């Protein structure tokens, strides 16, 4: 049983000279920092699974610095007074953040106080069979095959797969033997309107000249299943050079001469190693203190990050256009068909189908194209016994592409960016079972549905926190297919993701939070109006009951304890979003307790500033140091120093 506690630990701000003092706790699951200042006592909870690296820096006069980098882009810098304590924490963390077996992951000990039935219901929320039914599959051209029921044909695919009705078992099996990891072409999205299919697979083992009749038949079958088009597109999402190199290893890409009626296309998305390096470069630049605008823009360009995001988006747009404009079916693959293929299929489907832009639909999309088709979350997100070469921000890129779309189409999505960020948080947290392991089969072996909880149920229970207030279902009717612009200037740095925890970077007032609050008030107002009307109507007749009927209008202070699991505070939104109840209270205060609510929200230290905005955090210039310690006479001498320097 572990609980280390160290007092007088300093937490340094990443971008300014500010620091706060508090107590550091190390528990079996979290590293917790509690600020000692009683007025603004902030708490920081860091899950061990979120920690990517711990670094002990060389000893300074004030203590021993400990630098912790997290997978959710949080970076904390502690200074621990005694070296021994620092070393204790350091070595315990090293042990804790390298779990060796799945059983050690948080999901297996996390207990949100639900009974078995609730847990099961949580897992039943997303039903992929129902999803394919929604798309109109099975139909006269596509059928469910049981060939992979026992994971015998492809270990990394789900059990239930949809193939053209003309694709017989021998064709499937033959084709699977000609594809990397046995990942033969299967249906992932069906565009009912044009009967066009989006299919996915891995690269063919064609080498320089190998052929496989079954595989050729398979593609024929996909083509024939769509009467609207005589050809299908085969999108190889890799750069051509990479695909060529794979030929030497007996893999490669489809030869148009051998596959009749295909239109072959490279789209040039880089591989996982390039993406990993790119994010690393991006984070390095963004982590620089007193970053200049030039270094920022040059760094953004050199990291290539936005170029990669745009490449993925371009590919998805190509897919969507082929399906809608030409009514053609599309087969997407990369090397193994679980990284770039997942990105392009998922994003393409999102462009094609408004359902995936709703909260529930987005969950279904992730469940289908990422989880069930075997995106290797455990490897890519570094869950267990990591191989650093397997780690890559592929899923993060997908979330970012969706965010870029929400920027262009603010009314198209039911969810706000906070939803995306929250999913990203939990892909790495290992708190829920959904993303554990690398494939459906592995998840079954781990009995996740029996032993862990589903993230989707948790997110749906907090659904109101993730709503986009300007979402308009009628937008989906007028824009069933999204056609984003791919002009470079539409792609922006996603500050709220990569600087999620850097308070000083964010807008000090959030439009989203503001409108969202109003949004919650709206529904309250309408219900309250009905209520008040009823009271008024009932008034002359029911004098006695009057006192009772007004009571709901009075401030309610339910003593009920909130049993939320520790949730990272949303810095983007300034503070955790209010629950309905809290809004209700605030509302009441507005009427009944006006004197209690000053115009100016109470901010820290009696400063005359908007909450969260501070002159000291930003470091505008030479004066910065002096203002941090206002009452010290050093202020003036420092300024003299500056003055001397300038003369």
């Amino acid at each position: 049983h572990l609980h280390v506690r160290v007092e007088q630990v300093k937490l340094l701000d990443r971008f300014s000279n500010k620091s706060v003092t508090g107590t550091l706790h190390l528990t079996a699951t979290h590293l917790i920092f509690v600020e000692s200042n009683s007025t603004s006592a902030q708490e920081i909870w860091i899950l061990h699974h979120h920690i990517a690296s711990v670094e002990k820096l060389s000893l300074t006069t004030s203590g021993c610095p400990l630098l912790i980098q997290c997978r959710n882009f949080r970076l904390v810098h502690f200074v621990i007074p005694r070296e021994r304590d620092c070393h204790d924490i350091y070595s315990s963390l090293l042990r804790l953040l390298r779990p060796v077996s799945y059983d050690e992951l948080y999901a297996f000990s996390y207990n949100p106080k639900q009974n078995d039935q609730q847990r099961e219901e949580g897992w039943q929320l997303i039903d992929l069979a129902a999803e394919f039914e929604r798309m109109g599959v099975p139909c006269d051209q596509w059928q469910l095959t049981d060939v992979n029921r026992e994971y015998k044909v492809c270990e990394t695919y789900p059990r239930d797969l949809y193939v053209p009705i003309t694709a017989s078992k021998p064709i499937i099996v033959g084709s699977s033997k000609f594809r990397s990891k046995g990942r033969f072409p299967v249906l992932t999205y069906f565009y009912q309107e044009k009967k066009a299919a989006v299919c996915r697979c891995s690269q063919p083992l064609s080498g320089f000249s190998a052929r496989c009749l079954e595989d050729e038949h398979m593609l024929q079958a996909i083509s024939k299943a769509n009467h609207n088009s005589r050809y299908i597109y085969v999108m190889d999402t890799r750069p051509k050079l990479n695909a060529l190199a794979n030929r030497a290893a007996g893999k490669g890409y489809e030869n148009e001469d051998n596959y009749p009626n295909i239109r072959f296309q490279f789209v040039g998305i880089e591989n996982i190693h390039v993406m990993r390096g790119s994010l690393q470069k991006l984070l390095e630049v963004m982590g620089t203190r007193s970053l200049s605008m030039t270094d920022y823009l040059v760094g953004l360009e050199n990291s290539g990050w936005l170029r990669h995001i745009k490449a993925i988006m371009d590919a998805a747009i190509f897919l969507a256009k082929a399906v809608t404009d030409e009514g053609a079916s599309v087969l997407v693959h990369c090397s193994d068909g679980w990284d770039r293929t997942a990105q392009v299929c998922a994003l393409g489907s999102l462009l094609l189908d408004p359902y995936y832009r709703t909260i529930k639909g987005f969950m279904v999309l992730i469940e289908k194209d990422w989880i069930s088709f075997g995106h290797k979350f455990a490897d890519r997100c570094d869950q267990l016994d990591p191989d650093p070469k397997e780690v890559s921000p592929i899923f993060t890129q997908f979330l970012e592409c969706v965010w870029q779309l929400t920027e262009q189409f603010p009314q198209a999505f039911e969810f706000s960016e906070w939803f995306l960020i929250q999913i990203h948080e939990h892909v790495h947290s290992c708190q829920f079972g959904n993303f554990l392991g690398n494939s459906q089969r592995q998840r079954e072996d781990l009995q996740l549905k029996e032993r862990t909880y589903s993230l989707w149920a948790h997110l749906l229970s907090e659904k109101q926190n993730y709503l986009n207030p300007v979402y308009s279902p009628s937008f989906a009717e007028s824009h069933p297919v999204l056609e984003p612009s791919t002009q470079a200037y539409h792609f922006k740095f996603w500050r709220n993701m990569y600087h999620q925890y850097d308070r000083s970077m964010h807008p000090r007032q959030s439009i989203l939070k503001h409108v969202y609050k109003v949004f919650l008030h709206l529904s309250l107002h309408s219900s309250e109006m009905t209520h008040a009307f009823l009271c008024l109507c009932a008034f002359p007749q029911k004098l006695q009951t009057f006192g009772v009927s007004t009571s709901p209008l009075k401030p309610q202070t339910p003593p009920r304890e909130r049993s939320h699991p520790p949730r990272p505070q949303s810095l983007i939104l300034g503070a955790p979003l209010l629950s309905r109840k809290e809004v209700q209270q605030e509302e009441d205060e507005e009427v009944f307790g006006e004197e209690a609510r000053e115009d100016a929200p109470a901010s820290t230290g009696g400063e005359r500033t908007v909450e969260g905005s501070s002159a000291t955090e930003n470091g505008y210039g030479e004066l910065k140091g002096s203002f941090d310690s206002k009452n010290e006479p050093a202020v003036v001498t420092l300024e003299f120093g500056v003055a001397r320097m300038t003369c």
Partner: protein
Amino acid sequence: MEFAELIKTPRVDGVVLHRPFMPTVEGTLCLTGHHLILSSRQDNTEELWLLHANIDSIEKRFVGSLGTIIVKCKDLRVIQLDIPGMEECLNIASSIEALSTLDSVSLMYPFFYRPLFEVIEDGWQLFVPEEAFKDLESMVLFYPWNETTLFGLPKEDEEDNIALWSAESAFTVDEAVMMRAAQPLTGTNGRRCKEDEKLINATLCAGKRGYIIDTRTIAVAQQAKTRGGGFEQEANYPQWRRIHKAIERSNVLQDSLIKLVEACNDQSHSMDRWLSKLEASNWQSKVKEILTTACLAAQCIDREGASVLVHGTEGTDSTLQVTSLAQIILDPACRTIRGFEVLIEREWLQAGHPFQQRCAQSAYSNGKPRSEAPVFLLFLDCVWQILRQFPCSFQFNENLLIMFFEHAYASQFGTFLGNCVAERVKLQLSQKTVSLWSWVNRPQELERFLNPLYEPNNLVIWPSVAPQSLLLWEGVFLRWNRSTKCLDEACQEMVHIIEYNKELQNKVNSLRRQLAQLETEDSPLQTP
């Protein structure tokens, strides 16, 4: 001079207008003394009315006898006119060129414009300097109204000049004042001026300190000495500490704007090219520099309680950017529409920012810039950055800033004509032209500029100046390059939600009041 002389072909039929994201319009092109007009003569289509003054440059192209004129406007819009007939096209082009580059101010449109609306509140009478400074403490020593004579001061009288120049008090918070000035004329031999020293030192009580923020680097300030300028020597101004910040001189800005707009108009879709061009334009760096300096000035006042004197060389460009932004950060009044108008009137118009020179050309100017520089646009960009970071703290929205940008460059109103108060008086603008304020402050117009999220607060708003927090002002620089339909609709939806909520809130409150009233009326009955 008659405008007719410049218009060889006043009318051409069958002209086709191409605008990005809008259907092409075929119609009749008319040239008047001040406008280029294209009308399809159909009821449902919008007519194009373009002020010649808004035209920055034109390009001509010919394919056979079909001529094409590309009109590039100061508000950054680019439109294309296909004109049948080579002669007509050449005539139109030369007329536009002549009419858009008229030298004489008195030929400008504001002198001909008669308002179609009733002037309820005359903008020229709105901001008398005494009024603008009224809320500030009695520290005001001189204000630009008296400077009408100042600009005519003979060169020899430089010392008086300094004293007067240095004495514009602008803004006070708790006894700390913010002032602006031009550089002192110390020269290479370190000339002194007793009056200037007295004046500047007199603004500080005993024991108080002040900061002089020189918007030039120390090297630039040193260089200025060789041209008779310079900076305050510490020994002569004992209570003051000088800080140098590097804000680019105005002449570099024009180049920066040209490059930025070129980058924004690049349709190549390449990410690397876009980012490197954006970086090379240096525009965003300038936004960061100015905001940083303004924050520093505000910090001196708010956190140190110290007085601040801001100056660069002339005190009419970077100085004004810094002082006006610092006030927006510190003073909630400047974040209201009226307050912002007062700020522009006081810190820009009356402070003598040479609008006419600076805004003579915009991003599509071909020639070598003379004194053109987007100093004011850069200031508006900085305001927009703060607005983005504090979306609930401003009474106005982005549209107001864009409107100021447009009118500073080309307008039917006289407000931004001339280069200083003296010139404006000489031009008799207040008698001969309509003020921009007369138009903006009409309730019908104001509505467009109101920020639905506004919730007044009396706080200081410290913006983040990290590059990650500063964005490209798309509303201006990408305005004509993208379709904003989706964004506009979302914005409308937001306004709708907020308004509906207010409406409901009022209803709920009135119902509650009724209930409460009934309750009190009846309570004696319940407890007899």
